[in-house]
């Protein structure tokens, strides 16, 4: 009898063992990096995994993000997500900036991927990124120049003030000039106040004067030139500029 029970138990074990084995060998939930790198997965799921990596801000994830960004076979949206995430993983070191710069200069790189890269360079706060932003100001696409100026405002490099000031005379696009006025407002320096005062007094576009006035009113103390420009703006033809010059929310 014992032999029969033993035999049956052995048979039962043999039958069940593949399931037991399989159950014990269940792979753990794939890590975000593994999901992000798995090109056979749905792009949406991959972008979601990349977004979680950005939220975690883990410097170790930079390698995976860089490899996604550099891969020309990836969808532009997935690459842009990797670029965006790199901007948020600030401790990732100079390799991130190098990869972002390389893809920005890639022939045929998709426009929104390039816009995202510029934004990420601003967020990275790696001051050596200013050279790429300066290079971008020479491009014909006004949105590239817009994002470059916006990134200069985020970067925190005083050199941005002289670059923006030097670029403004040649800039024909009012959106880029207005964004330049906003970016200058991030630098509480005499040079930026001087440039903003000039824009407030002389720019033909109300949008630019409006943003110059808003930026000047962000500073804690003003130069005589800036004060004079704000006073003069009390007679501006645009009511929004007049209100902004008074420090009111237009």
């Amino acid at each position, binding site marked *: 009898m014992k032999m029969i029970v033993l035999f049956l138990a052995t048979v039962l074990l043999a039958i069940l063992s593949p399931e037991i084995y399989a159950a014990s060998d269940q792979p753990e939930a794939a890590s*975000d990096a593994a999901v992000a790198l798995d*090109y*056979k997965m*749905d*792009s*949406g*799921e991959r*972008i*979601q*995994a990349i*977004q*979680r990596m*950005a*939220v975690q801000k883990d410097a170790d994830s930079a390698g995976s993000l860089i490899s996604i960004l550099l*891969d*020309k*076979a990836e*969808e*532009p*949206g997935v690459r*842009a*997500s990797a670029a*965006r995430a790199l901007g*948020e993983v600030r401790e990732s070191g100079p390799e991130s900036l190098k990869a972002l710069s390389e893809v920005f200069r890639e*022939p*045929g*790189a*998709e*426009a*929104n*991927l390039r*816009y*995202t890269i*510029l*934004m*990420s360079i601003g967020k990275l706060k790696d001051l050596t990124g200013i050279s790429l932003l300066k290079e971008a100001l020479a491009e014909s696409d006004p*949105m590239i120049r*817009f*994002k470059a100026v*916006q990134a200069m405002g985020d970067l925190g490099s005083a050199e941005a003030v002289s670059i923006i000031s030097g670029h403004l005379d040649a800039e024909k696009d*009012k*959106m880029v000039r*207005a*964004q330049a006025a*906003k970016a200058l407002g991030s630098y509480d320096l005499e040079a930026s106040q001087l440039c903003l005062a000039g824009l407030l007094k002389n720019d033909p*576009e*109300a*949008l630019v004067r*409006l*943003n110059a006035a808003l930026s000047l009113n962000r500073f804690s103390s003003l130069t005589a030139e800036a004060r004079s420009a704000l006073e003069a703006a009390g007679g501006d033809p*645009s*009511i*929004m*500029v007049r209100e902004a010059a008074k420090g009111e*929310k*237009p």
Partner: protein
Amino acid sequence: MRKSIIALSIAFIFAAAANTSAYEKGAIFYHSSKGDLIYGRTSILELPCSVIKAVFGELKSGHAGLYIGEGKIIHAIRDGVIETTSENFMTKEDLDGGAKFMGAKVPADYSDKAKWPDERKDQMILFAKEQVGKWYDLTFHKQTGAGSGDFTCVGLVEYVYEMVGYDITPLGFYSGGAGGKTYTQTYNCLETGFSDLERVNTFAETMQFSKFSHPLEFFAGLEYEGDKYMFFPYTQYIQATTVPVADDPATPISGGSGSGGGSGCFIATAAYGSVLNPHVGVLRAFRDKYLRVTSGGRAFMRLYAEWSPPVAGFIAESEGLKAVARVLLVPVIAAAYLVSTAGLWQSFVIAGLAFAGFAGAALYFRRRRGSVLQQAGRS
């Protein structure tokens, strides 16, 4: 003389019509999920676990975007906030799925220059441009998700309008004004990984939510009196403070790719002049279905991305080269179309049968010609 006057009048009428039908910058584009339906409004929904699949896959919601002038829009899609041509507002998949363009809308007083001077509209566009490159809000938490400044499509439109002092949603919708009630919205979906993210939103009591059912216990949604409700209805409220403007039917409903215009099919885009050309669409579909998901296909794509942009640049500059490229692309597009529609193995079988047919016919005619010549030689 009389004919000239009539012709001039007709030209003037057409010019005026063209002028009035152009969208104004700041206009909100809006499309349904299917027909007149905006999901989350009327029916009980069966949802997949993944938020991504819910929004971009099995369940399509409505969509909104901001027209920024010069044929361009800024909208928040899965890839993030992007600037693109207005043809890309609705994707081919949207159109194939029965989505309907609901028209462009602006605030009721938008034509009042005293309330909406040009600089106010421009400032709104500037705020929208600043957001380009940011994340899509996958948690659907009001306007910004997880505190990181990301957007849903409607959230983006609301944000830019609010930044210039215009509240596009009805009074009390978020503020908890008259009849407002606070709902707890819990995101705890294992598959999405957005677990234990609890957000509190306040909506007007009168707002209509749609119940949904889901195979898993945990899912993003609004819990109220034991039932769960979906967040999508919020798309419909964008209309509450806006009025329709004249449509320009050529622009937003051409069924673009949805993304930023770069197809990656550089040579075909140069040859056909637009990423929206259906021939380019065939190649794009083939690439996404067969090349992007295999290591060999991806190796080819990397190689192609390396050498094709300069070649495409050459082609784009010459009408003659474009014509030559279009002729050379015919068999490639035909093969891609065959494989995409019939499947890979079926295509091999069809191509094999076609080849065997041609070869058989050639052999038959060759033999027949030989026997005719032989008979002629004998006679």
